């Protein structure tokens, strides 16, 4: 039985399998971490999708996770936008991560409403390649839905940083991919809670010491 299955899989490359996304091959922005690319359905942060990152605390390496993607976007002449970050991103450290600061933009607004509006506008702009947005736990679902639509329209990657809630956010969420971040002595521990075509949650550890 297994032999027959293996044969079928190797002999027919066009066979649709449960863990690949439905429809045409979608493009993705490589995360820069081989092990993470392996478990993400399109082999990276999918374009035109909202990725929700649940962060228990600031300073566990959450920006380090996005650094390779920021580098890839800014070095190819597209813009990356950071909206409502919790602290000031430190330029020498970004420069050390080979991020082109000319293509990096910082938006820090007084009200969260303005931040969401700016995110919506930026996502729809074709020149924007990656958007990192920090929201608080009270941001309503319909607003996130709107952002997801904007990301899809602009074919932009949206990384949404959201504080982790003790009771969770309920069953329905608009994110295409949800990742739970946890601090780890070597780097960062990730739980892939939701991804298209995924049946079981998966976990992995990223080692920042190597890169």
């Amino acid at each position: 039985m297994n032999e027959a299955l293996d044969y079928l899989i190797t002999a027919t490359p066009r066979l649709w399998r449960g863990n690949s996304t439905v429809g045409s091959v979608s493009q993705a922005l490589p995360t820069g971490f081989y092990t993470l690319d392996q478990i993400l359905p399109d082999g990276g942060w999918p374009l035109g999708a909202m990725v929700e990152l649940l962060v228990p605390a600031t300073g566990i390496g959450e920006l380090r996770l996005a650094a390779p993607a920021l580098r890839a976007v800014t070095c190819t002449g597209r813009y990356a936008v950071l909206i409502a970050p919790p602290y000031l991103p430190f330029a020498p450290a970004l420069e050390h991560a080979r991020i082109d600061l000319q293509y990096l933009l910082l938006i820090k607004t007084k009200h969260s409403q303005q931040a969401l509006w700016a995110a919506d506008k930026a996502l729809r702009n074709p020149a924007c390649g990656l958007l990192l947005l920090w929201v608080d736990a009270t941001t309503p679902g319909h607003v996130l839905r709107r952002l997801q639509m904007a990301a899809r329209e602009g074919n932009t990657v949206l990384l949404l940083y959201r504080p982790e809630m003790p009771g969770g956010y309920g069953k329905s969420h608009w994110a295409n991919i949800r990742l739970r971040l946890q601090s780890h002595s070597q780097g960062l521990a990730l739980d892939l809670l939701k991804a298209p075509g995924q049946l079981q949650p998966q976990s992995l550890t990223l080692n920042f010491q190597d890169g």
Partner: protein
Amino acid sequence: MADLFQAFGLRAADSGKRRLKLLHQVSAAQTTPATTLWMAVYLPRLALHAVVETEEAAVVIETQAGRSLIISTNQAAERLSITNGMMLSAALSLCNGLHIYERDSSTEYRLLNEVAAIAYSFSDSVSLYASDTIVLEICNSLKLFGGLDALQQGLQQSIEKLKLQTILSVAPTACAATWLALSGQTTARITDLRALKTVLRTLPISLITGKTKTTRQFQNCGIQTLGDYMRLPHKDVNRRFGLRPLRVLQQALGELPELLQYYHPPEPFSSEWHFDDPVATCGLIEKVVERLLQGLQQYLQIRCAAIQYVVLRLEHIDQSISNLRISSSHYQRNDAHLKQLFHERLQNYELKQPVISICLRADEIHVLPAANMELFAVHNNNQQDWQQLMDILQARLGQQIIRQLSTCDDPRPEYAYRFSNNAGAKLRHSGWPFWLLETPQPLDIRQFSKNLKPENGAERIEQGWWAGADIRRDYYCTQHAQGSARYWVFQDCRSGQWFLHGLFG
């Protein structure tokens, strides 16, 4: 039979002669086309449009020598047989509920200038010919705009955006074109000087002299049309009526040169709008701004120019003034983009007082160099799209909200970055964190020693004695005891005080 034949033959010869004459005319027209061609734009209801827009019967009056005369009527009033030149008392006897307005010459002049500005985009020779008529030379523009029909249609459509009624006519001289328009010959298009004379013969004599005593004298002599006038011996007519009528006629026929004062667009651009009633909402102001922006675009287009900022001046009911400045990161001529910038700005703008008038001003006009176009479409709009996005965000959120970072070649962490988009010295530092606290936060040493454990040795930074901001610090990378976040802390070597300065995000 012979008679008949003879008659027939004669007639045939006669028609042949005529045809020959006609052919001669045509060939003459082909060989000697008019070197100038003028289009007159007559605005028949300008006086009324300047003061009111209404469906009900309305008239505009002007008081001359104690008598109120009607100078402009709308369609509803015309249906009641109220005509221009009628006494107000006579009009009131025809319609009791007539709306009466005083003439507003300054608004008329402003509107006429707006029309002239539109015409200026079709021709470089535009002149304000009368208080309700402009003329433009079109002979040199015909090829560019694709013929007379296309030009006339384009001009008419542009003017109709101002909701003005127009009568356009074409003749080889400005004066003749104006006469044709004034006499309501909407389809009159005379491109040949010979044909002009024939057409002018049928026009009334009042066109030369206006509603004056001379006109009445002409009419009393039985001279009703220009044709009647032309038939008389010039010498005798001049002795009786003066030289002026003949001169005007000769100018109209192209026998004497016409002296015109040409229109030049004002510089710098400034366009005003006065509200009838004070306006307290931004929505209405935005609508008017849209219209003023149309004028600005026209203005920029004819100069191949662009602007970087415009100023909207709001005059409030208490005479105070507020200025709204809308700027763009790159040269701009597209009114749709400016419209959007105004939309974003006005949405958040709170009016101090109701507004009575607004004025849109563009002080600095930059002439754009002509750019070459790519033969094959190249998708290179990224930069432009992005600049437009920046403008929109800044218009709504303010200039200080959006920032770009760059590094500075300074070993002190506080001075190692700048808010600017100029690529400075590339400063790369490996042990430094992604998040920085703009001002270091003092730490309680007892709490600190309990919860945070240092991961590595100290990084001593001892710098800045030359700049007055002398620092001597030992930086540590520490991890929280509960195993979550990593912090960047330092001990001030002078005071011994501990500070939190960053997080390893």
